[in-house]
C-alpha cells in the first residue's frame, strides 16, 4: 500500500510534473532549433505523432528501447526533411506546410495504428522495452528526501531530454556551427554572402529539430503503455503546447526546461488539485473551488504575458530570429 501522508502526496505531485511533461521539453527544444534556422514549423504535433507510432512499433517489435529511439528520431526527421523540401527548396508557405505536416502526421499515425490492428504489440509483450523505460535510481542522490524522488528517480528518457536541452543550448550559443545557424535565422542574405551554406544548414537543422520532436512522441507512447485504441492520438495536443513554450522560453533551450516545469505544473495541477486540497485542507483547500479548466488555460495566459513583457522590455532581449517564417530566395536578395 502506498504511503499516503500529505508530504508524500506533494512529492508525487512534483514527480508527476516531470514524468508527464518531459515530452513538452523534447517538442520545444526541437522547435527552437527549427526556428533558430528561420523556419516556423507548425507540424510539431504531426511530427511527434509519426515519431511516436514508428518508434513505438519498432521498439516493441525488437523489444529494444534504443531501436525505438533511433527509429522515432529518423522517421520524425523525415517529416522535417519533407518540411524542408517544401519550404526551403520549393518555397512553399511555412505556416500552411506546417499545418499540412500536422494533418499528415496524425493521419499517418492512425492509418498505421489501425492497419496493424490485431497484431498490435503491447508493452507486456516487450518486457525489455518496458524495463528500459523503468525508473532508474541514481545511487546516493535518489535516497535524499524529497529531491531524491522528484529529481533523481526518473526513467532514462527524462535525463536524455534534459541532456538534449543542455546540448542544444551549448550548440546554439557556444559553437561556431550554432553561430552560423543563428545567422541563417536572423539574416540569411548576410549569412549567404559570407559563405554559409544556407541550404545545408536549413536542411540539417530542420531534420535535427524534427528528430528531437519525434523522441518526445516516443516518450509519450511509452508513457501511455503503448496502448493504441484508435480514437485518441498519444501526442494529444502536446505539440501545440510546445509551440507556445518556444515563445515562453524566448527561444532558449535552457529556459525551455523552466517553461516545461511551469506548463507541467499547471497541467498536472489539473488532475492533482483535489488530491492536494484534501492532503492540505488548511493551506490548499481553496484549490477545490478553482474550475479545472482554468489550470488548462493558465499556461497560455502566462505565455501571452511573457510575450507582451518581452516585447515591451526591449527588442534586443527577444530571442525570436528576425527572419522567422520568411522563405529565403537567393535571387531576391
Amino acid at each position, binding site marked *: 500500500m502506498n504511503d499516503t501522508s500529505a508530504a508524500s502526496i506533494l512529492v508525487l505531485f512534483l514527480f508527476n510534473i516531470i514524468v508527464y511533461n518531459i515530452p513538452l521539453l523534447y517538442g520545444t527544444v526541437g522547435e527552437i532549433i527549427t526556428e533558430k534556422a528561420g523556419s516556423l514549423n507548425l507540424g510539431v504535433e504531426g511530427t511527434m505523432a509519426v515519431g511516436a507510432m514508428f518508434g513505438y512499433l519498432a521498439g516493441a517489435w525488437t523489444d529494444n528501447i534504443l531501436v525505438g529511439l533511433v527509429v522515432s528520431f529518423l522517421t520524425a526527421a523525415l517529416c522535417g526533411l519533407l518540411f524542408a523540401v517544401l519550404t526551403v527548396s520549393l518555397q512553399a508557405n511555412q505556416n500552411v506546410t506546417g499545418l499540412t505536416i500536422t494533418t499528415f502526421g496524425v493521419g499517418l499515425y492512425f492509418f498505421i495504428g489501425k492497419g496493424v490492428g490485431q497484431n498490435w504489440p503491447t508493452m507486456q509483450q516487450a518486457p525489455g522495452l518496458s524495463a528500459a523505460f523503468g525508473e532508474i535510481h541514481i545511487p546516493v542522490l535518489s535516497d535524499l528526501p524529497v529531491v531524491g524522488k522528484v529529481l533523481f528517480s526518473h526513467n532514462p528518457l527524462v535525463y536524455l531530454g534534459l541532456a538534449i536541452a543542455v546540448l542544444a543550448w551549448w550548440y546554439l550559443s557556444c559553437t561556431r556551427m550554432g553561430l552560423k545557424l543563428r545567422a541563417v535565422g536572423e539574416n540569411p542574405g548576410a549569412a549567404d554572402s559570407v559563405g554559409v551554406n544556407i541550404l545545408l544548414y536549413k536542411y540539417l537543422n530542420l531534420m535535427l529539430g524534427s528528430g528531437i520532436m519525434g523522441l518526445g512522441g516516443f516518450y509519450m507512447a511509452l508513457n501511455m503503455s503503448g496502448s493504441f485504441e484508435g480514437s*485518441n492520438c498519444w501526442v494529444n495536443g502536446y505539440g501545440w503546447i510546445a509551440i507556445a513554450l518556444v515563445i515562453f522560453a524566448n527561444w532558449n533551450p535552457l529556459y525551455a526546461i523552466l517553461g516545461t516545469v511551469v506548463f507541467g505544473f499547471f497541467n498536472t495541477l489539473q488532475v492533482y488539485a483535489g488530491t492536494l486540497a484534501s492532503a492540505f485542507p488548511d493551506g490548499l483547500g481553496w484549490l477545490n473551488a478553482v474550475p479545472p479548466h482554468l489550470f488548462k488555460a493558465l499556461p497560455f495566459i502566462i505565455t501571452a504575458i511573457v510575450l507582451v513583457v518581452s516585447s515591451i522590455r526591449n527588442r534586443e532581449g527577444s530571442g525570436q530570429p528576425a527572419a522567422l517564417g520568411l522563405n529565403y530566395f537567393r535571387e531576391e536578395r
Partner: protein
Amino acid sequence: MKKFLAMALAVAMTLSLAACGSNSSSSSAGSNTGSSSSASGSQTASNTDFKVGAIYINGQNDTAGYTYQHHKGITTAMENLGMDPATQLLIVDQVPENDTEVSNAIDTLASQGCQLIIGISFGYLNAMDAAAAKPEYSDIIFTHATGYLSNPDNFNNYFGRIYQARYLTGIAAGLKSLETGNNSLGYVAAYNLDYAETCSGINAFTLGALAVNPNATVTVKTLDTWGDETLERQTAQALIDAGCGVIAQHCDSAQPQLAAQESGVFGCGYNSDMTEQAPDAHITAAIWHWDVYYQAAIEAAMQGKEHFMETMGEAYYAGLAEGMVDISPINEAVAAPGTQAAVDAVTELIVSGEWDVFSGVKLNITVNEDGTVNVEQVDADLKDTAGNVIVPAGGASVDDSVIKGSMNYNVEGVVVS
C-alpha cells in the same frame, strides 16, 4: 530536375487519390443496392430489402470505444437476423453533435432509402427529433441512444440500466478492498453530476462496494471530457498516488487499468473486457450488449413503424434481465475469493425484479469461509453526500431518475476530489 519532381508529385497524388477512391467505396457500405439480392436465398423478402442507417460520432473502423461498441452491436444484430451489413447497413460516421451536420447525415441516409435511422450520440437528439417530425420522413423510423426525446409516431430513444452492472463491479471492487485491507477506491469519471448516466454509475458502484465493505470510500475525479486518454491516464495515476487500491472508470480507454497494472493495484473497467490489456489488475468491467436492443429494434422495424413503436415503446430501457448490460467474465486470477458467488446472488435479485439498486433497501453481502454468500436485505435510508434522504428506508427504487435523467447527486460514501 524540377520537371521530374513535379511529375513524381503528380503521380503520387494520382495514386493517393485512387487509394482514397477505393477506400471510400468499400467503407460507405451498401451504396450499391442491386447486389443485395444475391445474398443467401433462405431469407425473407423483407430481410434482404430492409435498409438500416446509422450515424456515428467516431469512426466506423475504430477498434475500441463507444462507436465501436455500437457498430459491433448493429452488425451482430443484422447478422443474427440474416441480413448483410455490407449492403444493408449505411453509415455516416465522424458526425459531430451539431444540428446541421446531423440533419445532413439524416438526409443522406434517407435519400439512400434507409427505413430505420439510428443515432448513437446524445447531442443528436434535437436534429433527430426535428427530422422525425418532417412529413417527408414520416415513414422512416428514428431511434436515438441515450437521449430523452421521442414522439408516439416514429421516434423513440433507448438506453440501458448500466448502473445495475456498475453495482456488480462495485461488489467485486469492495471484496478486493476487503482482501487488501485498503478501503480507498478510486473512480475516473468523464463527468459526474452533469449527466445522470455518469453520476448514477458512480453511485451504483459505491453502493455495491459498501454492500460488502461498509468502510469503503470512493474517491471520484472528473475529466470534463468524454475522450482524452492522456488525461485518463494521469487522473488514474493521481488517484493511485492518493492511495486508492482499486480504480474504476467511466471513460473509454483502458489507460486507468494500465495505470493500475503498472502501479500494482487493481481496477474495474468499462465498455469492454479490459483483462486483456491489464491481466494482473483488471477484475471485471461493466459492459453493454447493444445487439440485444438492435436485434429487437430492427426486427420490429421491418414490420412497420406502428409495430415498432408498439413493441419498443417511446423509451426503451433494458437491464441485466434482458441481457442488455452485463459484466465481463471475472478475472479469477485477480478477484477476491467469493466474487463470482456474490455477483451471481445479486444478479439473481435484480433479474427477478425483487430488488433494485436505488431503493430504500440496502444489501449486506458477506462471503463465508466456505465460499458461500449471504445476502441480507436491510431497510435503510438512501442518502446523498449532504445527508439528505433521497429514498426513505424501505422505499421503492428511484431508477426512474436515472432513466429520465434527473439524478444529480452523489450517494454517501462518494468523495469528490
